[in-house]
């Protein structure tokens, strides 16, 4: 064991740091998906497209503004603002003109509507941004790197991935928890998640809450994409990869659970990056193995609540 650490310690440290930053990204996307599911009861496949569009838009806006002479320090705020913009435009459009028509439909049909939207948006991305990789990493370069002490050695790592990504994820987690528990709107959202009918009977305007929640979820997806854009080149298909991973997180965490999504994202982010460094063949499989193991023990998900069966 000690010898193994001697040989692989640094690699493990790198895997942990990497896992932390990717867990942050996974969390942002998955928590949006989970929130939307909790309130609208729709698993939004197009959440992955919002992630991809968020990433592409952030890169385009970043490239455009850099051309106008935007200082490097403003690159990270630009990412966040462009994500908010994408969510604020696309979220209400999708909710109002598409989802609102299908709330009364079967679950299968709702799933398929968002799948159709996913297919459409997938091609829209290709038509707008083409299929060539797009790379814009000003935000990451501007913040430089840091030597993380690990035992006797140092691991060089970018500040962006070490502080910004997990930082924003933690701020989102805490902010969301406070928002849902302490503010009126937040409590109304929780009420609708728990029992839609009872909440409507109390006079809550469900339509407004649906619109609000979906837009917020769309912003979170776009934020995940925007923040990921400096770390890797953007290619078609990133939306598809992201959404299946987010599904796994949501099902493992328990439907509608915020803290559950955070813990699961951390598990999957770390599991995946450890796999990348030690058993690359398993990278894609690890999240699903975690999911299957968790669901074997807790069929309702880590933090899920067992629903009473109706007779």
């Amino acid at each position: 064991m000690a010898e193994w650490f001697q040989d692989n310690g640094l690699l493990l440290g790198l895997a942990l740091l990497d896992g932390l930053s990717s867990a942050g990204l996974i969390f942002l996307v998955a928590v949006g998906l989970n929130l939307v599911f909790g309130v609208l009861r729709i698993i939004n496949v197009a959440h992955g497209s919002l992630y991809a569009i968020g990433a592409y838009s952030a890169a385009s806006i970043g490239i455009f503004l850099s051309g106008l002479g935007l200082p490097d320090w403003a690159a990270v705020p630009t990412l966040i603002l462009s994500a908010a913009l994408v969510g604020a435009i696309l979220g209400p459009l999708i909710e109002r003109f598409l989802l609102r028509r299908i709330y009364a439909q079967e679950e299968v049909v709702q799933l398929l509507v968002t799948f159709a939207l996913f297919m459409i948006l997938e091609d829209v991305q290709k038509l707008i941004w083409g299929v060539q990789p797009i790379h814009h990493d000003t935000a990451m370069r501007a913040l430089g790197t840091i030597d993380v002490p690990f035992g006797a050695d140092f691991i060089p790592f970018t500040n962006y991935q070490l502080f910004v990504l997990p930082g924003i994820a933690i701020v989102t987690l805490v902010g969301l928890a406070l928002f849902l528990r302490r503010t009126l709107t937040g409590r109304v959202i929780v009420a609708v998640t728990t029992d839609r009918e009872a909440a409507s009977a109390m006079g809550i305007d469900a339509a407004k809450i649906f619109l609000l929640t979906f837009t917020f979820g769309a912003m979170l997806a776009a934020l995940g994409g925007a923040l990921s854009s400096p770390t890797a080149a953007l290619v078609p298909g990133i939306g598809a990869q992201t959404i299946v991973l987010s599904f796994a997180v949501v099902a493992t965490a328990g439907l509608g659970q915020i803290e559950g999504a955070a813990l699961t994202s951390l598990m999957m982010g770390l599991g995946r990056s450890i796999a990348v460094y030690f058993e690359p063949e398993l990278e894609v499989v690890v999240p699903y193995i975690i999911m299957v193991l968790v669901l074997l023990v807790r069929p309702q998900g880590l933090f899920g609540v067992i629903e009473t069966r109706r007779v």
Partner: protein
Amino acid sequence: MRRYEPILALVLAAAMITAAIMAPWLRFVLTIALAKGIAVVGILLLLRAGQVSFGHALYVAFGAYVVAFLAPRLNDAVLLLAAAAVGAGILGLLIGLFVTRYRQIFFGMLNLAMSMVFYSLLEKLYHITHGSDGIRVEVMPVAGQALDRVAYEWSIFGIALALAFTVGLLVRLYLSSPMGEALAGIKTRETRLEFMGVPARGVLLSAYVMSAMLGGIGGAIIAMTSRHVTPLLAYWTSSGELVFIAILGGAGGVLGPFLGAAAFELVRIYAAASFADAWQLILGSVLLLVILFAPGGLWGMAARLLGKGGTR
């Protein structure tokens, strides 16, 4: 409406044969459509129980890879089809024992997870599966007869058509049997089913194994027709495609999947040929229009045209 099904099936079959004779490239498209139709009948079974599997491409890909792997040793289309069906059935039983404990979104996502694990294995175990390059399938003898390429393609088309007929007939019988009615009961209210002493999980499991076998058969035909298998067959978008076809065709009757599959493949061919960069956009729009404006799918539309209203 049910009365008309056999007649409509014959008309549809005749139309397919005519089309295949008139345009050889259509023979290829229609064989694939029949294969997917058979797999989608499996989706239909699960939809009856109100469950949607978002990972059934797993069984299609499994059937296809059974053909690709065994073809050098078991060089006969008929034997390979049987092997694919049995293999997919066993895999379906193993996975089904696990996933039938779950319902709704968990059921869908666990199926998705299983198919993605299979996809990654196909992709990563390069020395066995040749990764994303895939494996070529050579023209093989059919029922002991060595055939040239054209005769081979016709035979596979014929087999697919015959199998589609048999599957349609058997599933029709199954759905109107007590077991099939119990399946619909899972959707309506599972608890009551259990109060009556019907083991709901067992009913769902048997349907799941059947749907896995149908997936395996469909996959085997796809492998024999396209003569090239890749991990993409198991990717989650392929699973989505199967559910897509089920809804496009309409979940009301066993002809729906075949109508849906034929329409899907034809739209895809035309869209891919005319708008190479936007075929997904077109397919997605078609799906949206069908869901929003023709909820019963193509089969529901046909039912209305025949003036019988109901789709059951």
